[in-house]
């Protein structure tokens, strides 16, 4: 059945309300089961041995003493994970990251693993594994890595996207370019040009729940995996491919997930746990320590970005260009490319060009982090835009409004925009009382804009109607922040029944068709579209059943306010039938009632936000306090406004941490120096003020309810908004994130900020 996803304006009953989430009570009573809260009978404890070197050839691994230790049931190395990737470079990198093959590429790279009867024995066993390394020169800094004499990570890495292909290998995996127009001509037309270089340091997603799984592989080649993940179907695919299992025989159940933010979008230790289980013949539970999480999972790119923007005195930007270098850890990625695509997406530009370079370094494999790559590009561009506005003598909000992209603008990354929210968020900021709040000594205000694409993707949903008329909604997108509540609201809305009669669950991979993972802010967008489609299919079934119950043609049955009604003079006096009535009769009218949906949720509407921030900088210590913070963002339609606000606030808080404090610190030896929450300090409650939010609703024309993804955009503007605020407070332009006290003091002293 064709499904029309186009937007129709309507008055909502359930959507837009703020009920308690269905998984709430379990989560406040300690009953919710996260990755590490699950056990299988006879399970062993898995532990991973990691390289202490940033870059080293693995000459030999001797596991014999560990294998002989009482209580050790399996020891594995890369030899137990043979390469089955068949030329798929991306999967090969994931395999190599799970277990080093010949070379350790960063401090923390897995080299061997054990499964033992308990944690004590497993820890002892790790100490008995002897790895013979030949330490190689390393490079951890993105700017150092691109220098001609930098140590090479891969002798066969020749920069892609360059014509002709380079003759010498380098640490630049790929070059990408976006834009249109003639920037040279554009800069000639400019009265004022700002040209600056910026740096941002590497941060971690910082989810509070470390990666955890329980894996069981049977002798018949079937397996079970319990895991905290943003996408259990994707994990199934990865694990089956890497271990040579049939996809259908590996059942993956997603646990409750204790935060992901992009860091749980591809496998890290799960194939290792499965390989250990296969070798030991018993289930294996593998939980990362916090140190493992920092050293060997997740982090975002460190970046180095050059920006040049020119404008006429009337405030029109005539040309903009950027060169972006993003670290990807030791493997190629598309991080700089995403930066290049998003850098100028907020503006309507005649002449624009952005060039991205993917740089490999001896650091952990970069993973997506909430609107991956966009915050750093926005930091650089929005800092330059602010400076340009100041130089022209124009209010920074008005300057942005003058240049903002609108419906019909050709975006800097190619597509032409439909109805978008950048202009409205700026207008809302202009009118916001925050902009008039008084500022004191050493205080400054900054604002900045942000963009994220949003994603749709493959989605499958089942809606089952129980015998009592209540509804179970089985979705395949992992709930990372309240989507089960939102999706229950959507099902209730569509069926015309109360929210309390719908229960949404996340189904495992054996009971539902494939779903892409919860990334790209797609959870609520795509699964709500699939839910609407499934509910409409169920309504069709219920209309048929009502027709049978009434013994009238189905063409004479309509669905209104959760009831089947007979239409026409002939049948008009038949009493309405509720979902409950129809469900109760199901056994006699054709059996169980369900609605299914399998879709590719196209048309995720792009997302824009504008943030305002006030800070106070202590000139003695260089410490920055965030005084006020306001997020204005377009949600298309806020299904559960409280959880939309939560996304806005959470992204802002992560951005504040990134802007002011968080960074990976490496020693000269290439080892990570701050692999713990004490030294890698994320914002705590006393660091932050209340975070004010304003939800705008500019309907997405490609969704029946107008919904847009809301999860990621909120982390895009903070780096720039805070940098602009700090720069305004101290009177010196800050160009290096995080703006930690030493960097601010150095900037105040007029030294290079390092």
């Amino acid at each position, binding site marked *: 059945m064709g499904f029309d996803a186009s937007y129709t304006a309507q008055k909502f009953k359930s959507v837009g309300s703020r009920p308690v989430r269905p998984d709430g009570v379990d989560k406040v009573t300690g009953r919710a089961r996260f990755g590490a809260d699950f056990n299988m009978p006879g399970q062993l404890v898995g532990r991973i041995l990691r390289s202490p070197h940033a870059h080293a050839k693995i000459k030999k691994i001797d596991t014999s003493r560990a294998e002989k230790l009482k209580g050790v049931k399996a020891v594995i190395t890369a030899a137990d994970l043979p390469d089955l990737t068949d030329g798929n470079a991306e999967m090969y990198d994931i395999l190599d990251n799970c277990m080093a093959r010949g070379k350790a590429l960063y401090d923390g790279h897995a080299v061997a693993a054990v499964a033992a009867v308990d944690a004590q024995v497993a820890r002892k066993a790790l100490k008995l594994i002897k790895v013979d390394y030949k330490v190689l020169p390393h490079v951890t800094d993105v700017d150092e890595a691109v220098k001609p004499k930098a140590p090479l990570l891969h002798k066969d890495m020749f920069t892609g996207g360059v014509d002709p292909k380079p003759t010498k290998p380098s640490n630049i995996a790929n070059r990408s370019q976006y834009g249109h127009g003639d920037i040279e001509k554009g800069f000639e037309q400019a009265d004022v040009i700002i040209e600056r270089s910026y740096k941002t340091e590497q941060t971690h997603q910082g989810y509070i729940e470390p990666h955890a799984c329980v894996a069981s592989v049977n002798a018949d080649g079937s397996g079970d995996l319990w895991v905290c993940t943003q996408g259990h179907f994707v994990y199934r695919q990865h694990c089956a491919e890497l271990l040579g299992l049939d996809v259908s025989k590996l059942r993956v159940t997603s646990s*409750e997930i204790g935060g992901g933010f992009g860091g749980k979008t591809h496998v890290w230790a799960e194939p290792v746990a499965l390989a250990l289980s296969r070798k030991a013949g018993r289930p294996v539970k593998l939980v990362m320590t*916090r140190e493992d999480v920092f050293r060997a999972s997740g982090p975002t790119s460190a970046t180095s970005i050059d920006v040049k923007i020119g404008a006429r005195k009337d405030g029109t930007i005539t040309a903009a260009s950027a060169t972006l270098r993003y670290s990807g850890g030791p493997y190629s990625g598309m991080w700089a490319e995403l930066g290049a695509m998003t850098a100028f997406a907020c503006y309507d530009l005649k002449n624009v060009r952005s060039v991205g370079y993917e740089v490999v370094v001896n650091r952990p494999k970069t993973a997506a982090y909430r609107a991956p790559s966009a915050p750093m590009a926005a930091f650089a561009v929005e800092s330059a835009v602010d400076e340009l506005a100041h130089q022209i003598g124009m209010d920074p909000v008005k300057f942005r409004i003058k240049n903002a992209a609108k419906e019909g603008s050709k975006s800097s990354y190619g597509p032409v925009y439909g109805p978008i929210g950048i202009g409205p968020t700026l207008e809302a900021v202009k009118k916001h009382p925050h902009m008039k709040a008084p500022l004191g000594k050493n205080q400054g205000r900054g604002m900045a804009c942000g963009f994220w694409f949003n994603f749709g993707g493959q989605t499958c949903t089942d809606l089952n109607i129980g015998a009592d008329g209540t509804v179970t909604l089985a979705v395949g997108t992992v709930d990372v922040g309240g989507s089960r509540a939102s999706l229950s609201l959507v099902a209730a809305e569509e069926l015309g029944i109360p929210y309390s009669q719908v229960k949404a669950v996340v189904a495992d991979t054996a009971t539902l068709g494939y779903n892409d993972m919860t990334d790209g802010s797609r959870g609520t967008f795509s699964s709500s579209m699939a839910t609407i489609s499934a509910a409409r299919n169920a309504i069709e079934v219920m209309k048929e059943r009502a027709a049978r119950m009434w013994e009238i043609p189905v063409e004479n049955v309509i669905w209104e306010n959760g009831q089947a009604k007979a239409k026409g003079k002939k049948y008009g006096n038949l009493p309405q039938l509720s979902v409950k009535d129809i469900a109760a009769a199901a056994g006699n009218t054709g059996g169980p009632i369900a609605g299914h949906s399998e879709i590719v949720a196209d048309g995720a509407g792009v997302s824009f936000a504008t943030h305002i921030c006030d800070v106070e900088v202590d000139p003695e210590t260089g410490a920055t306090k965030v005084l006020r913070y306001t997020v204005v963002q377009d949600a298309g339609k806020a299904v559960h406004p409280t959880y939309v606000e939560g996304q806005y606030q*959470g992204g802002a808080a992560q951005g504040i941490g990134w802007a002011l404090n968080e960074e990976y610190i490496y020693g000269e030896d290439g080892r990570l120096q701050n692999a*713990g929450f004490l030294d890698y300090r994320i914002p705590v*409650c006393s660091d932050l003020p209340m975070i004010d939010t304003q939800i705008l609703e500019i309907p997405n024309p490609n969704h029946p309810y107008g919904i847009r993804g809301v999860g990621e955009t909120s982390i895009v503007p903070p780096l720039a908004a805070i940098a602009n605020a700090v720069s305004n407070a101290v009177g010196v332009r800050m160009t290096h994130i995080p703006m930690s006290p030493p960097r601010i003091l150095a900037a105040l002293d007029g030294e290079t900020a390092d």
Partner: protein
Amino acid sequence: MPGLAVSTTINGDDVEFLCQAEETLLDVLRDRLGLTGAKEGCGTGDCGACSVIVDGRLVCSCLVLGAEADGSRIETIEGMADGETLHPLQSKFLEHAALQCGVCTPGFLIAAKDLLARNPDPTEEEIRFGLAGNLCRCTGYDKIVRAVQDAARTMKGV
């Protein structure tokens, strides 16, 4: 190694267990007693996800040895509700959507309960500093602070 015999009271019930000298109270609660409400976010006392109350004192159970708990009275998240009736903090956390992923929530609830026991009428600043030992990466703390403020009002009967 033979285990150490430990006698405790957990959420009002007498509980005896054997543990190794190196096992933390968190290990014991989670792996030996099946009380997985307390979470291990760091194992170094930095995140507060493993917060429990031992003899009236808020602690990170990852920093207490299981054997140290001998003879003590322990309160965990599993004992916070009174049967079917949620504690006001639990209700207000749900009402205010003070959780997203929920993994830090048990620790926050235990820490907030301890805070309100010591200071039934805290200012926003006192709440923020009182809960500064608990990390949340999802919410930005705004809704957590509001939930605790509202629970404090409810508990005072205002």
